[in-house]
């Protein structure tokens, strides 16, 4: 019993509530938001140390005995993801001061951000499948607000699609949980895992596993369910896009990771084989999109799809090395996607266009921006000292261990496509003749946008260079994922 693991969820929630007062006072809104995020970051950091020293932490609401109450479980995977979420939100909110616009800030932008963080952190921490659904809805409701806030024509059009897709997938989620409940008779995730192992996953549970893949795949944008993502993510302003790109699809990926390592581990030749095939096609689909577009936003958005494929490929291997790589790559991808969206946000701000063909020659005027973009791009592709390297290396190593040689080579080859797609932005926007420049450029706003972005890129460099320091935490995380009994024991026996 330790309530401490709830603080990274409760604190943003509380600050979201008090932000509902004084909606017109920008200073109050901004300072309170940052303060709330800083306190949560400190708590999340202490939580990681605690989990590292004492193993997974659990708390069951209302002093009920374990399978009957809602259990919140913070193992290393969720603790790391919670910290990453909060840190990224901190930088994105800071970045948003310069670019989101006063009108939006006055109309519940910050409460929306805080509630989305509540939902994401709750989804990462919960140990109850229906509670996971509730937290999904919390983050989705907040994301509906953020996607439509501002009321531009494109935002209204895309939010209708986005809401429609998510309402359907949420209904499917409820139906799937209903099936699972009628077969297993419990909602506690550890209890489900134990009971599935007892009855050795008959056919109906494999069907439920595929249904879960459908539900979470729609949230995480895997092939053939990613169709809504490119246009929906292009609609909101850059800080919201960065928040979505860094956090939302990753919750779906985490949910697939959790269910496929904890529940459905007894018919690998079907479920995980399917996951592997879908992951590969997802990478192909994302690569095609990333190469086809000349719109900077779209290129990075399709890179989200590629990364989802790579992470799920790691999950599909089901060995400790690949799972460790998947966690490594997941966190790397959250950081680098936020950084890249912020960087191209600056490029769009400076040039006033999203069309690559109209840009050019930014290197002469903005050398620092150019070099940091190059570093982030190389980090995304996985060039050795940078952050994307070790995750992909472990995933591929795990792939070879599991005997999937050809597909592993394919994953390596896909890095080239990723590199090509982001370097194309670099070549078109930063090299060559001077292209279009925006007239509304203003040096202070530029600096406002520049500072948090650079800090985030530096953080991603640290994540790559400091692999040795992070490694023990990742080991812990992959141990939990590859051996469900660690999780189950922590919940069913450790929780008094």
């Amino acid at each position, binding site marked *: *019993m330790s*309530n401490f693991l*709830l603080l990274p969820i*409760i604190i943003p*929630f*509380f600050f979201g*509530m*008090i932000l*509902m*007062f004084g*909606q017109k006072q920008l200073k109050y809104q901004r300072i309170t938001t940052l303060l709330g995020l800083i306190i949560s970051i400190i708590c999340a950091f202490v939580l990681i140390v605690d989990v590292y020293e004492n193993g997974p932490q659990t*708390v*069951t*609401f*209302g*002093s009920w005995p374990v399978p009957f109450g809602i259990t919140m479980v913070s193992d290393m995977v969720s603790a790391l993801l919670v910290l990453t979420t909060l840190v990224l939100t901190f930088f994105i909110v800071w970045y948003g001061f310069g670019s989101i616009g006063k009108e939006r800030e006055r109309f519940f932008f910050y409460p929306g951000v805080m509630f989305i963080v509540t939902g994401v952190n709750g989804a990462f921490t919960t140990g109850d499948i229906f509670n996971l659904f509730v937290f999904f809805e919390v983050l989705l409701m907040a994301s509906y607000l953020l996607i439509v806030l501002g009321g531009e024509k494109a935002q209204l059009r895309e939010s209708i699609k986005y809401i429609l897709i998510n309402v359907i997938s949420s209904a499917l989620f409820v139906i799937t949980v209903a099936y699972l409940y009628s077969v297993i008779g419990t909602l506690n995730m550890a209890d489900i895992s134990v009971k599935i192992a007892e009855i050795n996953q008959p056919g109906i549970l494999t069907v439920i596993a595929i249904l879960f893949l459908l539900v979470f795949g729609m949230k995480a944008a895997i092939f053939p369910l990613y169709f809504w993502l490119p246009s929906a993510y292009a609609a909101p302003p850059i800080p919201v896009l960065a928040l979505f790109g860094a956090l939302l699809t990753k919750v779906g990926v985490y949910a697939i990771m959790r269910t496929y390592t904890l529940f459905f581990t007894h018919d690998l030749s079907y479920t995980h084989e399917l996951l592997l095939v879908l992951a590969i096609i997802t990478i192909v689909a994302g690569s095609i999109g990333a190469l086809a577009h000349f719109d900077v936003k779209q290129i990075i958005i399709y890179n989200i799809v590629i990364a989802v494929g790579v992470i799920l490929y790691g999950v599909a291997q089901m060995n400790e090395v690949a799972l460790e790589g998947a966690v490594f790559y997941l966190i790397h991808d959250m950081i680098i996607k936020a950084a890249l969206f912020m960087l191209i946000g600056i490029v769009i701000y400076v040039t006033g266009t999203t069309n690559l063909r109209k840009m050019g020659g930014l290197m002469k005027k903005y050398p620092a921006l150019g070099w940091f973009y190059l570093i982030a791009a190389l980090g995304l592709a996985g060039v050795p000292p940078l952050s994307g390297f070790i995750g992909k290396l472990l995933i591929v190593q795990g792939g070879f261990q599991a005997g999937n040689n050809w597909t592993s080579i394919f994953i390596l080859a896909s890095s080239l496509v990723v590199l090509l797609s982001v370097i194309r932005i670099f070549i078109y926007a930063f090299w060559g003749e001077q292209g279009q420049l925006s007239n509304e450029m203003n040096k202070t706003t530029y600096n406002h946008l520049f500072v948090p972005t650079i800090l985030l890129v530096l953080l991603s460099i640290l994540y790559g260079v400091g692999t040795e320091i992070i490694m023990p935490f990742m080991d812990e995380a992959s141990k939990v994922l590859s051996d469900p009994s660690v999780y189950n024991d922590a919940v069913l026996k450790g929780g008094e």
Partner: protein
Amino acid sequence: MKVNNVILQFTAKIVFFIIFFFAVNIFFAGHYTPGGGFVGGLVTASAIVLLIIAFDLNTVQKLLPINYIFVVAVGLILSLGTASFSMFVGQPFFTHFFDYFYLPLFGKTSLHTAALFDLGVYLVVVGVTMTIIQTIGEDE
């Protein structure tokens, strides 16, 4: 042509209180019989909506000068406060407490902190419903 709403307005004045007290009854009965914060909140909101139908939006806003967004926020804070109170006394989050008290008029009564949580739910439901109806109603 001016429509005379005498009967509607007169009935609404009386029926408003009947509905409102019914809502309070539902709210307090929730622990032992069907009902609770959610239904109570909806019924309260419907009583206010009846007033809006019988009179108009501005009159009702003058009558009940409430910022419903603050009602939502207060409700949320109350619910979270009730749930997290147990954290400060070393119990898991959401642990509720109850005991029997001898109150002057009611005699032996069981008081439960779940009622405070329900009050939060009640306020949120009233606030959200009224915010929706007011914003759509005010929209030209």
